[in-house]
Structure formats: C-alpha cells, structure tokens
C-alpha cells in the first residue's frame, strides 16, 4: 500500500491528463457532431450522404482499431503532406493525436444524438418563431437551441460516459495517462493488481462525477414548472 502512496502524486497527475483528454475530445466531438447533424438534416443530397457514410463507417468499427488507425495513420499522412509542400516534419504529440481520434469517433455518435434531439423539437415551435418574424439565426439560437439542449442532454451524457471509458485505450498506445502509467508502474514494482485496481477506482469516480454533473445540467435545462 505504501508504494501506491509514493506513486500517488504521479498517478493523480496522470488522471488529470485523462480528464483533460476526455474534455478536449468531447469539445471536438461536439463540433463534429453538430456538423454531422447539420449535414444529415440538410436538404442537399451530398451533405446527407457524407454524413450518413461518416456515422455508418465509424459506428461499424471498434474504437480500438479506429484509434490506432488515426493515431498512426494521421501522422504518416501529415508527413506525406508536409513533405509534398516542402515543409519540415511536423510531429503531433500523442495527446493531440488521441484527442483527434476520440473526438472523431464520438462525433459520429453525437451526430445521431443531435439529429434525434433536433427532430424531437416540435415543428410548431419553429413555425411559431417564423410567424413572429425572427431571422433564421435568431430562430435557431433563441427558440430551437434551448429545447434541443433539453432533448439532447440525456444522450449527450451517455456518450460522454462511453467517451471517458474509451480514453483508456490511448494509454495503451504510449501516452502516459492513468491506464498506461498504472500498467507500467504496476509491472515495475510487481504489484499489477493494486495499480490496476486503483485505475478502476479512479474511473469509477469519474463515472459518478460525470453522472452527477449531467444530472445537475438536466435539472438546469428541464422544462420550467416541472422542476423537481
């Protein structure tokens, strides 16, 4: 047990890395999800087709395979591009590669969430806003978005829970986040069980903390008058 206490500062720092990885990739995934939902809902054929292909392909492949593919593939592609342009080699750090990979994957899941949420905003609300003469931008920001957030939050929370869990995979690829560090440390001091159990415990804390935050948010965005 003493050894874990000695390692505790490093492990806590590593779990901070895991959390920031999760939050950064959630940000990217939200952007991509909004873009994908826009594509899926648009009237243009190509927008719909690209968005459909994006979600269908990403959701058909395990995250482990995709993360590895993006993690190593993107760097190699970048090298080809920068060499072709005559620039020097620009290497992306494992952290940002992980953010890119996870954000790209969960963008596909969020696309579906956002699309469903947009469709569950009643058509009458949009029409009422239109009849008040609001511009399309104000219509979206003032009328549709608040209701969209309300419908999207439960699904968004679920996707975030899955996203946190999939950050574990990045640790295997060489980033010194919680999982990678705990595995290495556990093997070097010959206490793999204790260290992996610590990782499990930390992830459980993240899980409960995230579900608490999302419960608060859901209450914040609940329909007024039905607030419990």
């Amino acid at each position: 047990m003493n050894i874990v206490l000695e390692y505790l500062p490093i492990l806590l720092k590593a779990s901070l890395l895991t959390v920031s990885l999760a939050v950064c990739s959630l940000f990217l995934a939200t952007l991509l999800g909004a873009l994908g939902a826009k594509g899926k809902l648009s009237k243009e054929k190509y927008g719909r087709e690209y968005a459909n292909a994006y979600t269908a392909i990403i959701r058909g492949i395990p995250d482990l395979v995709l993360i590895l593919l993006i993690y190593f593939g993107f760097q190699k592609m970048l090298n080809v591009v920068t060499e072709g342009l005559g620039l020097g080699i620009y290497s992306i750090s494992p952290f940002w590669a992980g953010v890119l990979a996870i954000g790209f994957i969960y963008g596909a899941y969020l696309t579906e969430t956002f699309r469903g949420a947009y469709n569950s905003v009643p058509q009458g609300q949009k029409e009422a806003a239109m009849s008040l003469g609001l511009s399309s931008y104000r219509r979206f920001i003032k009328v549709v978005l608040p209701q969209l957030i309300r419908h999207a939050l439960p699904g968004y929370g679920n996707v975030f829970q899955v996203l946190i869990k999939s950050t574990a995979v990045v640790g295997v690829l060489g980033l010194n986040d919680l999982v990678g560090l705990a595995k290495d440390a556990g093997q070097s001091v010959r206490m793999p069980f204790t260290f992996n159990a610590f990782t499990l415990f930390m992830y459980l804390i993240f899980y409960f903390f995230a579900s608490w935050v999302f419960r608060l948010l859901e209450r914040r965005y609940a329909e007024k008058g039905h607030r419990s």
Partner: protein
Amino acid sequence: MKVQLTRSWFFNRVFQLVILGLFAKFLFGLKWHLIFQEMPSLAEAVWLTIQLTIISLAIGFIIAWPLALLRAKRKKEWLAKIADAYVAVFRGTPLLVQIFLIYFGLGGQQWMQESFLWPIFRDPYWCVIIGFSLNSAAYACEIFRGALMNGGAGEREAAQSLGLSEFKTDWLVWVPASWRRALPQYGNEMIFMMHSTAIAGLITMTEVFGWAKDINGKFYVTYEGLIAASIVYIVLTTTIIQISKLMEKHYLSYMKR
C-alpha cells in the same frame, strides 16, 4: 442506419470498395497483396472473434437475467444492493482496465499461481472470456432491468390470478415478455460486445484486431492490416444488425396479426 440488403446494394458496395482500394494502391502505394497472402490466418482470426463474441454474450445473458430480476423486484434489499454495485462497477469502468485487472492483476498474484485456478487464469483465452462475460452481464442486466420495470404489472397479475407460483410467474411470464421488449437494445449490446472483443488483441490473442496488429508489425506497414480489420468489423456489424432484425421478426411475429 436503414439499409435494404439487396443484391444490387451489395455489389455497389463491393464495387466502391474495389475502386477505393485501387485508388489507395496507386496513390499511396498500399500493398493489398499482403492481405490476400494472409487470408487463411484472417479466417482463423475472424472465427476467434465470432467465438469470443458468442460465448461471452451467452454467459452474460445467463448471468444477467437473475440479476435483473433481483434488481427489478428488490425483495431482498441487500442482495439487490450488491447487484447494483456490481453493475455500477462494471459499467462505470473501461473494459480494458477490467481485462488488465484479471489478466495481469489476478494472474500475477502469488496465491493465484499456486491455486487450482491457475490453468484458467494463465490462459488469455479464459481471462478474456471471464472479463467479457462479466462485462456483458452488467450491460445486459441494465437493459433487462429496464425492460422488466417497463410494464409487466398486468401480465403478472394475470399470471397470478391463474394460480401460477411466484417463480413460474417470473420465469414463464414476466421474463419472456420483457425479453421481447429488450430486443432492440440487446441488439446494440451484441454489436458493442463484438467491438469490445478487439481488446483481446491487446493481450496476445490473434483475433481480428490482434491479427491486424501482427500484420502491421510483420510487414512494417501502417494502414493495410488495420483497414482490412475495419472492413471485416463493418461486415460483422452489418451481419449482427441483420441477425437482430431476424430475431425481432421471430419474437415479435405475434404482434403483426
């Protein structure tokens, strides 16, 4: 995704894939002949993936129902609490860490290496099956509990009024009816389980992901193995979607009359 798996759809996809493959071959110099050369080992890898998926889903299914009943009825509160904790732990933590804990953690313990369980925990195959089954059981338990809680009061009262015992009411009436309600979500769980078997590739097993990693390491390439694995996984996912549709058709056929 709504896909009509007609023959023309299938040939269109294959055609697109071939075009993209040739494109990648001539533009980026991908070596597809390596994949064709390794086809026999790929077949074995696919079989291992299917095997792992089916065995873990089956064991998880068997464990999940009693737990779900326990959590839905809450007659014995302390047992239900234990089941709650089990589900929260297995759903709240990454499967990867769970597998590490079983394979490296339990397998590295002194007492484990001396006990009669050592032949099981020495073998990555059994470690992975234990981990996957427990994980799948937790996820399936949550799905089944939702289905059990979601209605069933009328069914149970009807069964009780016919004089069925509590055990029979639960297992012959409540559970089959809930299983039908749980089917769509259980289809998703089947897909997720199949995707999770990729984790077995990280602890030295050669299922599809492990095979891809081996190919990439063996021939020193970046994309080929992983892209081939992705295609295999997409095909498997589509197959599972079709299977779950067939299951829904089979179990819900009485509703269409």
